[in-house]
């Protein structure tokens, strides 16, 4: 066991855990004041539900032996994994379990941006359990488990651009379609400082997300840290500048969204590209996701917090860009620029497979949840008007002394 690698991975796991509250505030600031608690809870409760699912059967389905398509239940309850069992690379196996758990926690939380302000909370709890089990676990198995078919195909996804972001992005589209438009969409974000706080915690936590995905405190991890920061910066700047040029003002929410878009896009690439690649991927993400958001606001699908436009599109761009900018000297695999055009095809394959699977299965899950008596996807129109904080959680976010 290498105490240094273990030390870093313990830290990285904590950092990734913190991303979920970060996301909670990022999303929470973007909704109406009467739905902020509800929006925070969609993310926060994922820490509770998915953590339990993961240690029971989630990890086993994702990383247990099994087939090319999904793991088995041989590791149910982490059975047989002793505290001294070590992965090659030198960290305890249980630490790998922990690190992967944090990814499983945030992925469904990302989806919630599509259906905030109207999704039924109790149904969401069930959705969390089912979605992790039959969507997240298999896709993670495809890409990261040694038996996974995309892993065998040589698809590059260093830290989860496909497994986490493309996956969540497509599920978001399915959810937005089925839940339907809000009665009154297009509100002003109610608390911009929360958005900035959330973006800051995401940026901070993403260092664990990407620089931890090598499972070691080594050169690859350091490079991942550097390109992660670089891409986030380039994307934030790009988005901000476009906003400034187009409107004469630089939206703080826009800059924060740009940073997130850059972080999403560099995720799959962070173990394979250098600084120049990171600048290109980040700047590209800023432009592409800005346009994606712009177009989304012109269609009828109410993906309220632009999950697809930022995480879906950003993830797709990142996966493809990995195939373009990969540097053999860094991650061992060359990209199109270094003459390995074939990699591009593998990348696209992984993205398309994930998109199709995630979209179809998520659609199916929600359709079923919708018709199960007592569940159903959407709150009553009264609850939606009053706001989910009161209706679903019996709380008001902000109470001044006498009046509010």
């Amino acid at each position, binding site marked *: 066991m290498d105490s240094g690698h273990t030390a870093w991975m313990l830290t990285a796991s904590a950092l990734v855990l913190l991303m979920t509250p970060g996301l909670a505030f990022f999303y929470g600031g973007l909704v109406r004041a009467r739905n902020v608690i509800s929006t925070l809870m969609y993310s926060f409760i994922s820490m509770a539900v998915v953590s339990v699912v993961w240690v029971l059967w989630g990890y086993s389905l994702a990383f247990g032996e099994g087939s090319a398509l999904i793991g088995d239940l041989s590791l149910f309850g982490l059975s047989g994994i002793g505290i001294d069992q070590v992965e090659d690379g030198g960290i305890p196996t249980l630490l790998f379990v922990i690190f992967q758990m944090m990814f499983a926690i945030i992925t469904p939380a990302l989806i919630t941006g599509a259906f905030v302000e109207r999704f039924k909370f109790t149904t969401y709890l069930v959705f969390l359990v089912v979605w992790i089990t039959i969507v997240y676990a298999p896709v993670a198995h495809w890409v990261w488990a040694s038996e996974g078919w995309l892993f065998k195909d040589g698809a590059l996804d260093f830290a989860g651009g496909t497994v986490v972001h493309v996956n969540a992005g497509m599920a978001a589209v399915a959810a937005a379609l089925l839940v339907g438009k809000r009665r*009154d969409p297009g509100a002003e974000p109610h608390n911009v400082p929360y958005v900035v706080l959330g973006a800051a915690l995401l940026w901070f936590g993403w260092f664990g997300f990407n620089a931890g995905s090598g499972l070691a405190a080594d050169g690859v991890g350091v490079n991942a840290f550097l390109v992660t920061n670089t891409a986030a910066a380039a994307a934030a700047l790009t988005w901000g500048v476009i906003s400034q040029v187009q409107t004469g003002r630089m939206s703080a929410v826009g800059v924060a969204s740009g940073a997130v878009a850059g972080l999403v896009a560099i995720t799959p690439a962070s173990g394979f590209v250098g600084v120049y690649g990171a600048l290109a991927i980040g700047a590209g993400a800023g432009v592409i996701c800005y346009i994606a958001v712009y177009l989304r606001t012109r269609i009828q699908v109410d993906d309220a917090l632009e999950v697809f436009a930022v995480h879906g599109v950003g993830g797709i761009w990142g996966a493809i860009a990995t195939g373009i900018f990969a540097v053999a000297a860094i991650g061992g695999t060359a990209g199109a620029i270094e003459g390995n055009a074939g990699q591009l095809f593998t990348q696209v394959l992984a993205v398309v497979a994930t998109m199709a699977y995630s979209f179809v299965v998520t659609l199916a899950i929600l359709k079923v949840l919708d018709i199960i008596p007592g569940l159903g996807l959407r709150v009553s129109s009264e609850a939606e008007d009053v706001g989910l904080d009161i209706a679903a959680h019996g709380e008001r976010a902000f109470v001044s002394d006498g*009046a509010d």
Partner: protein
Amino acid sequence: MIKIEAIVRPERINSVTAALEQAGCGGFHYQNVTGQGTQRGVEVFTGRGAQMVRAAGSKTLVVTVVPDDLKDAVVEAIIGAARSPDGGRIGDGKIIISRVEDVIRVRTGEHGEAAI
């Protein structure tokens, strides 16, 4: 001139202001208040969520000053926009009407209806 004060549900404020503009009343101001009436308020948790209490609910107070002849149109407009679908629900609100002696426009110093 008269002053029309309407207490409405916060979630209705956008339709109310839209209705006001339609009714030819382009000037108004509004703010959140806490209100109670026949409707006893909303249920909220206290402490750690072990028990719930009733708290007066959130309402929005819209105020506009209009010439007398606009009164009925404006009241109609507000009722139309503020009343809950299918015949209204308890807590939809009230409209309070009172007389105003004068209005002055800060920018120009104009008085009376010219200032509205």
